[in-house]
């Protein structure tokens, strides 16, 4: 029975915390519903419409970069499982791997792939012209 006590406390805490948070935001938050805000996905794009419209090529770019960095994280799982067996050697190797990845990330970031929308790009161009 003692073993279950922790589980019960955990569940109670989890449910309680969620209930308190939702309750507080209902009580304290400003209510200003608009159709966009009530949509299931509030992502800045109309959620319903023809699926055959053209998307900006930026979507593909970001999706591809996400795909790459996402899949590399997969190497963390086996490392985490064998953490103690691998010891410091494994840690150093993994850090090296992620340092190499981060060079790629810095490259992508500095090349402006992550700048989203026309405003950010215009700002960058203006800054460059000023420099």
């Amino acid at each position, binding site marked *: 029975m003692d073993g279950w006590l922790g589980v019960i406390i955990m569940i109670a805490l989890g449910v309680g915390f969620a209930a308190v948070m939702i309750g507080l935001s209902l009580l304290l938050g400003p209510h200003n519903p608009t159709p966009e805000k009530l949509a299931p996905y509030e992502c800045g794009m109309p959620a319903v419409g023809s699926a055959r419209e053209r998307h900006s090529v930026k979507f*593909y770019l970001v999706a591809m*970069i996400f795909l*790459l960095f996402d*899949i590399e994280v997969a*190497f963390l799982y*086996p490392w985490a499982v064998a953490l103690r067996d691998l010891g410091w050697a494994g840690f150093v190797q993994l850090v090296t791997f992620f340092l190499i990845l981060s060079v790629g990330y810095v490259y992508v970031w500095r090349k402006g792939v992550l700048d989203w929308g026309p405003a950010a790009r215009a700002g960058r161009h203006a800054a460059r012209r000023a420099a």
Partner: protein
Amino acid sequence: MIPLGHYLIVSAMLFAIGTAGVFLRRNLITILLSIEIMLNAVNLSFVAFGRQFGSVDGQIIVFFVMTVAAAEAAVGLAIVIALFRHRESLNPDAFTSLKW
């Protein structure tokens, strides 16, 4: 317990499906998907063999293959987008400016 042979047969069938797709389908994206099917068929073999030996080597290899496949897919899609900008077509039969 499902015997090793069954996995290998499924894997071989998937590999054959992927190979057929590369040759028969006339859309670049579908061809890329077919290549992914081939790689995943191989992954199935690796996992099945790994289980047979009772070692995790097979699964670790699959991690590497998946990573490589993702990198390859990203580059492949980038090339397809660049190609589409030039040709406005995804049909491989349209790409004949070099003698095939």
